[in-house]
């Protein structure tokens, strides 16, 4: 993984070149920057430190702990460190942290509201070529149902940096959903990452696309651009704070568009789609379509972009779902509107 040779400012051209669009590298860089100003920040590993932990190890060897291949112990140790006022980051693959060590996350961390941050890498189907053991399409559902847990899915590398800083400033457990594969940039400038807030990236009256996470937000934006020439005007919301979720923004989008499509590189059960359905079902019921991974294990080996395409998570796939959703709702309101505006 990349070695950080400069102290370039986050978001700067040099910084982006160093990070290379990789969210986990950005998160690691943030941990290093945080450790510089806060001596309570620890970086913990389960024998995956070579995925970006080496710089922390070199800079702060006494706050770098590699427990070997023992994730349950890793999370328990993190809780113990947190009880003493430290801010430990647990760095491992998403599936290992949240599923292998699920009970340690539940009891030692969440029940005790321990100030532990879990940086889960290889989330989603980025590990497509590695096979189902390394993919993580259940992590949002697992993390979301644990009381006290904040669940964040940043949209790109720069957002991952900001999310990591916000996670450190929040007092309590946080799950950060990260990926190893370089993903397209959504944000050009550093911005404040506010827990509990979504961001409206585009406004349109026909459909609300609510997306979360790496690739998904960028592809949702790309899909909205492809729909525009067809006369379909989409609102696009980036919802990086899966929990707490931005209820007000969701209700507003549902009211303004009457149709919502969610996009996430996660199972269609229990993640962003589930969270949005819960909010809208209670507060503003509108037709809802979920783009995500079907409720099955992925038996197909393949590179990341092909996997996204196969699951309908690329721009074309998202655009196709939006068109289908509009047809299913019927009324063809958007067709007449677009014809009227052209004449």
């Amino acid at each position, binding site marked *: 993984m990349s070695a950080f040779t400069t102290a370039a400012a986050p978001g700067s051209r040099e910084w982006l070149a160093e990070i290379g669009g990789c969210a986990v590298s950005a998160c690691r860089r943030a941990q290093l920057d945080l450790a510089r100003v806060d001596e309570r920040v620890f970086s913990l590993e389960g024998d995956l430190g070579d995925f970006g932990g080496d710089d922390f190890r070199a800079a702060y060897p006494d706050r770098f702990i590699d427990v070997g291949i023992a994730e349950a112990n890793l999370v328990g140790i993190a809780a113990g460190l*947190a009880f003493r006022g430290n801010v430990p980051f647990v760095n491992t693959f998403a599936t290992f942290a949240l599923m292998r060590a699920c009970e340690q996350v539940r009891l030692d961390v969440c029940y005790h509201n321990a100030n532990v941050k879990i940086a889960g890498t290889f989330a989603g189907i980025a590990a497509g070529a590695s096979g189902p053991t390394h993919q993580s399409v259940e992590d949002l559902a697992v993390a979301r149902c644990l009381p006290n847990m904040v669940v964040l899915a940043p949209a790109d590398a720069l957002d991952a940096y900001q999310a990591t800083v916000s996670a450190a400033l929040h007092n309590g457990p946080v799950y950060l959903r990260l990926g190893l594969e370089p993903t397209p940039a959504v944000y050009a400038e550093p911005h404040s990452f506010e827990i509990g807030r979504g961001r409206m990236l585009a406004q349109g009256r026909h459909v609300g696309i609510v997306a979360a996470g790496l690739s998904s937000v960028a592809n949702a934006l790309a899909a909205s651009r492809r729909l525009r020439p067809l006369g379909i005007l989409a609102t696009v919301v980036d919802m990086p704070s899966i929990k707490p979720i931005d209820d007000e923004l969701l209700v507003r989008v549902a009211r303004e568009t009457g149709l919502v499509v969610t996009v996430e590189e996660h199972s269609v059960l229990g993640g962003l789609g589930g969270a949005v359905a819960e909010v809208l079902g209670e507060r503003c019921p509108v037709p809802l379509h979920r783009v995500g991974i079907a409720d099955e294990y992925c038996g197909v080996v393949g590179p990341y972009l092909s996997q996204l395409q196969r699951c309908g998570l690329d721009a074309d796939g998202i655009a196709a779902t939006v068109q289908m959703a509009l047809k299913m709702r019927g009324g063809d309101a958007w067709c007449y509107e677009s014809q009227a505006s052209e004449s």
Partner: protein
Amino acid sequence: MITTTGVLDESRRASLTALARRIRKHIVNLAAHSAGAHVGGSMSAVEILTVLYFDGVLTVNPDDPEMEGRDYFIFSKGHCSAALYSVLAERGFLPMEELQTYKQMGSRLAGHPSKDIPGVELATGSLGHGLPVAVGLAIAGKHDHAAYRVFVLVGDGECQEGTTWEAAMAAAHYGLGNLTVIVDRNGIQEDGPTEEVMALEPFAQKWRSFGWAVEEVDGHDLASLHQVLHGVPFQYGRPSVILAHTLKGHGISFAENTNKWHYGKLSPEQKRLALEEIESGAGSPLS
């Protein structure tokens, strides 16, 4: 290698014996007046807890349970809450009358200790959680050059949990001389003798091979416990483990050395009998 702080003097031994007897009676009452309690493992841990809390081993403060500089005690065999609550009440962390609320509606005294009880550092009950968290606390203490120490009481059956050995490996790797584990080696778990259910022996050898300094004691002999618990760490820069050989249900003849009283509710008659036996001096050292 044990650096002793002298033998337990006679008057203190007498007062600790009386205290252990009171704690046993509390456990009997809790098991009789609630839906039930883990009688066997509570009785086997009485002397260990007595020496930890009342013989100057643990630095703790009932008036300020979160006092900076306190030692951390993690009661990892959380199902034996009846023993822990009785000790916390005797030590002043809980009002004595609160014991009557054990497992009652609205009480904070659940069957497994929750985080909301003064003196409880970690909610336990799901086994195998205490030691990894203790390792984290001990690493933090070493990092900060803090004087506090970390003690963990685990059940012997609990050591079948894989996290025990993940954490044991890490504790030795990080040279945690500030960490002590006490194993309540009563030899019996819920389904029967540990050696029949899932053998732990050679137990001391396992710990030694993981890099721990090991001592074995009669876990009902106050003088031995005094000596060994005041003697930690047994070796500089190494975690210490005490295999405390105990008798499950010790002090109640019909509950001794059986898995039948791993958990149970005492009838009024059983309660009377148990209190009588305890009063007449049952619960003495094994040897």
